[in-house]
């Protein structure tokens, strides 16, 4: 197994769960109250952060904890977005918020079922092979949605407006994406804090040994895969409503898949707060600090990835922990 995503199991055990819950609740309250003072632009930056954070945490359940790096999670984002967009265009008479709710449920359900169907064969593959097969699946999904007219992927779908009258759209979607990201964090935390988490981490460290120890590796891997896909589609469908018009090219993007990995990597892979930090850092960097840069933005992102992998392989969280440990000594 690689040193990159090695997490000290003991820190998990000794970590104070109560403290983390307190921090989480405070953070949530602060973020929920923030729109009172935020400008619309800052709310949109918030939306981007929640979007990336939700995706990165969802990806991390499988990639960070089980060590299965998916290079094609945008498949679930895209399928979720299109399920929601298509369904919402059929629901005319109902109130907007009901449309929104039903679309979300449908998107998450569809992705859950699809993920469950492909989980077994796909998870037989390991390492790079798993990464590529997921990349391939994302491309196949995009091609199907683009080339069969029923999905309207090639000409694009206008997603109906669901914002309640009198509410600013950026505020509505700030809360919607915040909720989606919070659900990703809570579900992932609940799963990994118990038995499932240990099983997944054991699989990541050495799958064959895990099996020998009597861990039902298949079952845990499939669980992580399906939940990860459902969380990804949750973020995807909310995103589709917030953008208002989607085409295949707008939601099936390899760079979305890679951003999930990069956020996890920057923050600290195999943790929950890590990807959240990563999303904050990456979003602020690309949409605030480098917002006015007219060239070399891609190259800067590329260089950043290279530098982090080489100099801080356990991410910002790793650096913080290292520093804290040194201080304690």
């Amino acid at each position, binding site marked *: 197994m690689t040193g990159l995503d090695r997490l000290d199991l003991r820190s998990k055990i000794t970590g104070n769960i109560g403290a983390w819950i307190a921090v989480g609740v405070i953070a949530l309250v602060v973020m929920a109250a923030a729109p009172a003072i935020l400008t619309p632009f800052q709310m949109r930056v918030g939306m981007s952060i929640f979007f990336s954070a939700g995706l990165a945490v969802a990806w991390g359940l499988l990639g960070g904890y089980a060590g299965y790096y998916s290079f094609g999670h945008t498949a679930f984002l895209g399928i979720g977005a299109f399920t929601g967009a298509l369904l919402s265009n059929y629901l005319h008479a109902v109130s907007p918020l009901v449309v929104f709710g039903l679309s979300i449920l449908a998107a998450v359900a569809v992705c859950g079922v699809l993920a469950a169907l492909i989980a077994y064969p796909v998870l037989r593959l390991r390492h790079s092979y798993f990464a590529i097969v997921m990349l391939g699946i994302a491309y196949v999904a995009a091609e199907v949605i683009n080339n069969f007219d029923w999905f309207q992927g090639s000409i*694009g779908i206008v997603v109906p407006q669901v914002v309640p009258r009198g509410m600013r759209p950026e505020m509505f979607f700030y809360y919607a994406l915040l909720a989606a990201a919070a659900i990703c964090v809570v579900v992932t935390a609940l799963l990994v804090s118990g038995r499932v988490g240990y099983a997944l981490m054991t699989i990541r460290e050495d799958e064959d040994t895990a099996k020998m120890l009597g861990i039902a590796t298949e079952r845990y891997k499939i669980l992580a895969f399906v939940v990860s896909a459902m969380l990804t589609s949750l973020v995807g469908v909310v995103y589709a409503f917030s*953008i208002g018009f989607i085409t295949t090219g707008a939601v099936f993007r390899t760079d979305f898949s890679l951003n999930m990995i990069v956020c996890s990597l920057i923050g600290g892979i195999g943790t929950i707060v890590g990807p959240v930090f990563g999303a904050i850092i990456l979003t602020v960097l690309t*949409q605030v600090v480098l917002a006015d840069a007219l060239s070399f933005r891609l190259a800067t992102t590329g260089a950043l990835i290279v530098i982090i992998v080489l100099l801080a392989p356990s991410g910002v969280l790793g650096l913080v922990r290292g520093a804290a440990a040194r201080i304690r000594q």
Partner: protein
Amino acid sequence: MSIRMNRRTLLASAAGGVLALPFTSRGRAVAQAAKTVVLGGSIPLTGAAAETGMNVFAGYKTLVKFINEELKGFDVGGERVTFELNMIDDASEAQRATTLIQRQIDEGIEFFLGSFSSQIVLPTAAITERAGKVMVQTGGGSDQIFSQGFQSVFGMYPRASRSVYPAVDAFLSMDPKPQSAVVIYTNDPFSRLQADGVTAYIKEQGMNLLETYSLPAEVTDVSGVLASIRELKPDVALCVTHDQNSQLITAQMAATNTNVKGLFQVLGPATENYRKSLGNKADDIFAVTSWSEDMKYGDDIVGTAKDFANYYRKVETRPLVFHVVNGAQCIMIYMRAMQAAGSLEPMAVRDAIKGLDIMTFGGPIQFMPEGDGHPVKMGLKIAQVQKGELKVVFPKEVAAASAIWPMTPWDAR
């Protein structure tokens, strides 16, 4: 506008306004306190649409420079106005574009220019519309943009589904008149709408549509399509494809000696790389353009189409293609509408844009009630590559040359 004016400045600017009318005003020193109007918006300078994005951006820059430096601004309600361009790179990505557009709205920018490709223009236009700001864009032609009920969003082209009609009209004006056609298109939002529109129009005009071929965005080989064309022997082939695919189609048609009487490609022939790399194989191919520098367009601000071309070459290095001109026209629209409104209040300017019916160096400007360009006045013109240069051949009123018909067979070149 709450800036107080005293009698003197009012008189001075009124005088300035009179002087500015004929275009003798170039280089005139201006003493009034100038007001700077910021034009915001995003443009793709990286990512999939970067090439066209850069062309549109060059057009924006050129006319802003011209207005600020050559005209020293213009008068609106007795005030001297200059433009400042504040564009950001949206990387051809919708989320980034919407976030950054929001920042500009928060900063108080009231007039926006558009990005390129409908998947970005539509979400950003929804934000500016809602905020009560104005957008004039030259990069989103998809029908969906104009069916949202937007009141303050204007597009430089007729909507996509109608935009390729002139190609069919041009072919039908040829002698001998072609009887049959095939359509080849890329399956992406804009091309797809254009192709659906044009196939319907071909049938409506009584031509025999033999086949339509749909291509993915990445094409490495079109031998199969060409074999089918050699078999069907259509009189004309219409390609609703992007630069790269158009170029591949032409190269392979020449290499396999697949001849038709007329070959039309929406995008491709207008770019220099296309004509340079295909050499004489590019000759006789029809393309769209909205403009060419020998057109008899003109106004009393920039001058003729030729004058614009000369100025452009002085200040920019990118090749002069029609996207540049359309970008420049967006700036012109703002200037003329602000003058007509006599105000910098967004909704007044918006109403003035709706009422515009003017001629410019880039052609006539008039918008439909839904915000798309007038299908005839702002409709695309049909050009043909003749000896390596793009010449407008249709409609006859603006034609700079007569069409070569039928096209020279590949092997005779």
